[in-house]
């Protein structure tokens, strides 16, 4: 199980190749990639992501451990960036490996749902009209109840 919190971008293809390399026991590898989306009709200049160093790593490691206890996973990886990100840039990725695909898909969704509202990151959007903190969505909190 691995967690990486970093400012720099990552090579998606290389990360998945590395994640999959040398595995003989996993029949399924699932990955999800989060991308900065411009909801402001081309007005979004950038997003700044702040996090809580120390707690971020601990919180995500705990979420991963929970996923491992619920599903039959052979490996899991979370990469999450912080700092300044432009529309179209990758924010984060999750990868899961399991014997069969159901576990890998379910665990990846579980990890995403928990990262949304239990990992200490905060996003601020900058448009030409100013800056605003992204508010947490009620549906993100509600999504946790399905697990």
């Amino acid at each position, binding site marked *: 199980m691995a967690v990486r919190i970093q400012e720099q971008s990552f090579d998606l293809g290389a990360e998945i190749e590395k994640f999959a390399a040398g595995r003989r026991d996993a029949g399924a590898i699932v990955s999800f990639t*989060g991308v900065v989306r411009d909801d402001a009709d081309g007005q979004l200049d950038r997003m700044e992501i*702040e996090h*809580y160093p*120390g*707690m971020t790593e*601990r*919180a995500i490691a705990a979420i991963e451990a929970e996923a491992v206890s619920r599903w039959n996973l052979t490996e899991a990886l979370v990469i*999450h960036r912080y700092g300044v990100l432009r529309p179209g840039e990758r*924010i*984060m990725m999750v990868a899961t490996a399991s014997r069969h695909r159901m576990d890998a898909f379910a665990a990846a969704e579980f990890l*995403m749902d928990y*990262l*949304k*509202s*239990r*990992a*200490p*990151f*905060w*996003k*601020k959007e900058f448009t030409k009209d100013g800056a605003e*903190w*992204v*508010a*947490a969505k009620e549906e993100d*909190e509600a999504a946790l109840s399905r697990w």
Partner: protein
Amino acid sequence: MIDVLYFAWVRERIGLPREKVETNAETVVDLVEELKAREERYAAAFADISALRVAVDQELTDFSAPLKGAREIAFFPPMTGG
């Protein structure tokens, strides 16, 4: 002395990312009351604690949590990861 950390708009409203605080507060909410009594910017940041989250020693908890033995308290808005 405990380290008190602020993130996102809580940090902006209070005007600093962290500080050391001398306190005998027994719970998080007692500490919040002490901070609110200090200055207007704290009162503004903590006006509605239902809009805030708190972590004690890097574990998410609630405002009634005891502070005995705690080294680090962090206040922040609901998280927006992913």
